[in-house]
Structures are given as structure tokens and as C-alpha cells.
């Protein structure tokens, strides 16, 4: 057991920071505050990711057969940690390289891989994730968007909501249900994954104004949209297995605590400059927020370590997500209480606030993580258990 970085890992982090310092434009901070789904950041992500690709830093963790370098899991994670701390200049594309690409490699046909992987690894693809619906959020299996089998494919009708990046996406990783009256199986087995061209006739995207910044959440309406069989990922009945694999990759990908940690550094610098740091109560609260960040960091590292060792995913993912929610909110509470002016005059602090208030909601409600800890870590009985 050890908690240090190897020489190679340290060198990798230095290189990532050097590349970020070289590539990011002078107005990056102003751009970054709009969030990964904003017009500005999405547009910039095309330029940045293409440059990152040329540096060999967009998909080094991918297998060589798919254009990567078979880099160690920790290298991918260090890259993600530095990107998230910098405000995620990959914009929506972090999602492509973290889980959409790996899912396509594992479950996609050779035609799907040939079509979708090159744009991802070259930094010129934007995807969105068509999971949540008005009546199916955390309870994803309750989704009702219909995929009616027709000759050559499916006709999709329904609505998705809270969809990040939909306004700019080329392709949607869409979950829909083959209705029982059209021959679909019940429950999770009736779900299909359709790689849906967002330019297809019948798709309408509407941005939802929100507290968390622009471009992050949308409604997406599907009105009799045709999706060919060739664009179905996996077999009918296999979707839940694929989704679980995708979510495992998704949840490891984001080092949210690192942004919170660096916000704390920024806040302390300001408090010192304003002569307010000498107050012991301010120091104490900053220290408590720091502890939350570092606890979350270690739990996330534990997941990455498990992945690096080839262990099957376990309940640590849920434990870590809960810790990350506490860290983001702990830092946000500190900032809001001791630096309220920052919510009025510091766009970076505003951006952090916007990420923090969504921390327990985005990618599945935190309460679902608590359920998972109870069931998978503590082995507690199902809520439906009867003697």
C-alpha cells in the first residue's frame, strides 16, 4: 500500500499541466465559467481536443487497436483530474473519451466503430446522453420513449429531459423501449440503445433555462424519428448490461473534488488579500471543507486503483460519489458564507456554485448512491424484504 505517485505519473501530470498552459488561450478563464455545455466552451472544445489529439493526450488510455496507446488507468485519471481542475476545456467531449468510446469498442459493431470512433479520437465529435425522461430519472428502467420496430429499424417517439449538450450534439446515445404491444420484453429487457443522428427529421431540442448555467440541460423531443437497425448498439435485451458498463466508466471519469479544492485555494488567497484570513473561525471552516475534498479524493483514487488492478466494480463507486457530493457542497457552503461577494463578482466562483448545486443530482441522484452503498457495501435487505 502506498499513496505516492510514480516518477512516470508525476512526469505525466507535469506534461499535462505544461500542455494546458501552452494550449489554453488568455481568455480561457472567462470562457470556462460558462460550463462544458455552453456555446463558447463547446466551440472551443473542437479546437482544444484536436490539439490534444495531436499531443497524444486525448485518448492515450484507449487500446492501440483503436488509436490509443494502451496507457495506464492512472494516466487517464491524472489527465481527467487536471482537465476538470482547469474548468474542463474538453467541454462535452470528456464524455466521449471517458465512456462513449470505450462502450463502442466493447459493444459496437465494426461498422459502428469505424463510423464513430475516429471523430471521437480526433476531437471533433459531440455526443449527448438520452437517458432521463420526465417520468424516469434515477429510476431509469421506467423510461417510456418508444422504439417501435419497423422495416429496417425503429420509429422513435417520446421525450428526454435534462439532456446535457443536446443543443450541440451530433449523435445521441439514446435509450428507448420497444413497447410490449410491439413485441418488446418487459422491464429492463425491453430497452434498446440507439445511436441516433441528432440531425434526423423529427428531433427537436429545447434549452431549459436553469440555475446551473447555459447549455447544460435541454428537453429533446422525438417525433416518429427513424433509426436504422445498423445504429442499434448491442442486441435487444442487452442494453442494461451496456448501461451499467457505461455508468461505471462515466462515474470514474470526473474529478469534481479537484475543482472544489482549487476553488478553496482561490478563496483563501482572496480572504488573505482582503485581510480576513486571520479569523480562526474562517480557517477552521476552510480546513473542514479541505478535509471533505481530500476524503473524496482518496475514495475516488480507491476506485481508480481497483480499475487499475482489474478488480470488478464494487460499491466504492457509490461511496465515492456520496463523498464528492459532500465535498462540493461543503466548499460551496464555505464560499457562500465567507465569500458571498464572490457570487456577485467572481465568475469562477459562480461556476463552482453552479456545479456544486447539481453535484448530487447529475449522473443520478445521490440518494441512489446511498441505496447502492446500503445494498452492495453493507448487504442490507431490500426495501421490499419481508420475513
Amino acid at each position, binding site marked *: 500500500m502506498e*499513496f505516492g505517485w510514480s516518477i512516470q505519473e508525476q512526469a505525466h501530470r507535469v506534461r499535462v499541466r505544461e500542455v494546458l498552459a501552452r494550449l489554453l488561450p488568455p481568455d480561457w478563464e472567462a470562457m470556462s465559467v460558462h460550463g462544458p455545455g455552453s456555446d463558447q466552451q463547446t466551440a472551443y472544445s473542437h479546437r482544444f481536443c484536436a490539439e490534444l489529439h495531436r499531443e497524444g493526450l486525448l485518448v492515450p488510455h484507449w487500446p492501440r487497436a483503436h488509436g490509443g496507446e494502451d496507457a495506464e488507468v492512472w494516466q487517464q485519471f491524472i489527465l481527467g483530474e487536471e482537465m476538470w481542475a482547469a474548468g474542463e476545456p474538453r467541454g462535452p467531449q470528456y464524455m466521449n473519451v471517458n465512456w462513449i468510446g470505450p462502450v463502442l469498442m466493447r459493444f459496437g459493431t465494426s461498422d459502428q466503430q469505424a463510423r464513430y470512433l475516429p471523430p471521437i479520437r480526433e476531437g471533433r465529435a459531440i455526443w449527448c446522453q438520452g437517458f432521463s425522461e420526465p417520468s424516469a430519472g434515477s429510476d431509469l428502467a421506467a423510461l417510456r420513449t418508444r422504439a417501435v420496430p419497423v422495416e429496417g429499424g425503429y420509429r422513435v417517439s417520446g421525450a428526454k429531459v435534462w439532456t446535457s449538450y443536446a443543443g450541440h450534439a451530433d449523435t445521441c446515445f439514446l435509450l428507448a423501449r420497444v413497447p410490449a404491444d410491439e413485441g418488446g420484453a418487459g422491464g429492463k429487457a425491453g430497452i434498446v440503445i440507439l445511436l441516433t443522428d441528432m440531425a434526423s427529421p423529427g428531433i427537436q431540442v429545447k434549452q431549459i433555462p436553469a440555475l446551473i448555467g447555459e447549455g447544460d440541460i435541454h428537453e429533446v423531443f422525438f417525433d416518429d424519428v427513424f433509426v436504422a437497425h445498423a445504429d442499434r448498439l448491442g442486441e435487444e435485451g442487452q442494453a442494461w448490461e451496456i448501461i451499467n458498463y457505461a455508468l461505471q466508466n462515466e462515474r470514474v471519469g470526473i474529478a469534481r473534488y479537484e475543482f472544489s479544492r482549487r476553488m478553496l485555494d482561490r478563496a483563501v488567497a482572496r480572504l488573505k488579500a482582503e485581510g480576513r484570513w486571520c479569523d480562526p473561525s474562517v480557517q477552521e471552516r476552510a*480546513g473542514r471543507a479541505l*478535509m471533505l475534498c*481530500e476524503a473524496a479524493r482518496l475514495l475516488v483514487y480507491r476506485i481508480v486503483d481497483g480499475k487499475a488492478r482489474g478488480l470488478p466494480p464494487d460499491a*466504492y463507486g457509490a461511496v465515492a460519489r456520496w463523498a464528492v457530493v459532500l465535498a462540493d457542497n461543503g466548499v460551496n457552503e464555505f464560499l457562500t458564507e465567507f465569500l458571498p461577494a464572490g457570487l456577485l463578482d467572481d465568475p469562477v466562483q459562480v461556476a463552482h456554485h453552479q456545479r456544486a448545486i447539481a453535484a448530487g443530482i447529475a449522473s443520478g441522484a445521490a440518494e441512489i448512491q446511498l*441505496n447502492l452503498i446500503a*445494498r452492495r457495501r*453493507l448487504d442490507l*435487505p431490500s426495501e421490499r424484504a*419481508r420475513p
Partner: protein
Amino acid sequence: MKFALTDDQASVLNEVERMLDGLALPAHTEPVVAPYSDTLDAALAGSGFLDIAREDGFGTLDAALMVERLARSPHIVEAGASAIVAPAIGLEAGLRPVALVAGDPTGPARFLPRAQVLVADLGDHALAIEVDPARVQPVDSLFAYGYGRLDSLDGLPVRRIDDVATLRRRWRVAVAAEIAGCMAGALSLLVEHVKARHAFGRPLGAFQSIQHRLAMAAESAESSRWLALRAAWSDDDGDAAQAAGFAQSRIHALSYDLHQFSGAMGLTLEYPLHLWTYRLRALVGELGGAGAQARAAAAAAWPDAAE
């Protein structure tokens, strides 16, 4: 970054497990204060594990792993100060148990009724005081540990320790490891309880309100453990303050919830929950408590902060 135990670490912990396996709990002779486990103490002393941090090829992390594992058990022995603190402040091996106190050297200190040495942190320096058992007055304790106080320092051999930062750093690591183990032990007991105990036709553990709070307790125990182990590995002032402060900050909620879910049973001495929670409640205020550790963590992270 490797979170797996080495073969050596696994061997040591297996041997500790073997010592604990089947070890009978001594009967209580007084309320709340748990009997000191002489059998376990002797086994540990005989094994040399309490000096593991002094051995070539081993270190503070190995000691912290052992302390955390011991604290998961209901048996009470002094291990943290002996294994983690003593090697760093020049105390000779075998001079133990070691009691620690902050401030007044004649203030109450846990383990003092059995200790051979008392280390008192006086702020700008510390004292290592050889203890004459005849000079120790027992202190009535609400905690699971036995407490005592020296009548005075008169005539006792005393050595000055100038490196108080090292003392405090290791003390924080020891406290963090002990809290992490106590949390895990208490949680494990309660998880079994809520699986077995039924209400309204269901196991208690099937109610989501209970599941969520136990899940939160699990995160507290896990986070405390990894922060403690990292601090033991790095031997860094900031990491140690974070580890102790985080662990202390989670004691109140965890103890409340675990007692709440064990109901009136948890208020009895017959039910063993207090063997962990009344250690935790003693540890919550060590070294000034979570607030003091948080300020120390801030001072280390943002250096010109006054501690």
C-alpha cells in the same frame, strides 16, 4: 498509488486477526469503562508488532494498519501511542503502555492507570514522564477507557521533548486510525443488528431512512480510514491534521445514528455498542477536537495561516 495490502502487511494483519479470534471479552467490573485486555496486550507485546514502525522494511503505515484493525475489535488495548507515536519521539521500545495528554501533565489521561510513560504536550515543548503507578489516581470515567491522573510530577523522571510538531503529527495519525477502526467495528455490529431485528414486518435494515444513514456512516468510516492511512504513509503535518479532524468531525453523527438504530438495547452495557462508541466519544476531543485539527490542516495547506 496502490491501495492493496502488501504481502507483509497482509501477514501482519492475519496474525492480528489470529490473536483476536476467539478472544473472550473480560467481564465488566464497573459501568461503562471496559476492562483492559491484558491477554491481547501481552500477545501484541510478545509478537513485536507494537514496534513494527521501528523495523527495517516497515513503517508508520504498517503500525496504523494494525491500530485500525485492533480498534475494530471490542478489545481495548493501548496500541496507537506505542506503535505510532513512541518511535518518533525517542521513547525506547517496550516502555509502554504510553499515555498521552495535552496541557496540564496532571490532567486526566486515558490508559494512565496502566502506563509506564506519560507524554504531555505543553504547547511549545513536551515532557516524557516515567510513571510510578503508586502516583496515579484513578479517575471516574464515562468513557470506555480507563483514565487516571498523576498526583504531581515531583520526583518522577522527566525528559524534555522539543519536537512537539512530530509528537502532535503522530498523535493525530494514531487518533485517526483508532477512530477509523472504532467506526468500522461499531458499524459492523449495527449492520448485523438491523438485519436481524424486525419491526412492522420487515428487518429494520430494509427501511430506507435507516439504510441511508448507515450508508453515510459507511462513508464516514471509509473516508476516515483512507485519510488515516495516507497520513501514516506520508507522515505529513497537513495530512495528519486532515485525518484526525475529519474522523473526529464524523463521530457525533455516526454515534448518534448507531445508538438510535439499536434503540434502548444500545443504552445497556449488555449490548456491546458502547465498547466502540464510548471510545469514539473519548477520542472526539483529543488534541482540541475537530476544530483544532481543521485549523491545523488549514495552516498546513495555506502556510501563512496562524494555527
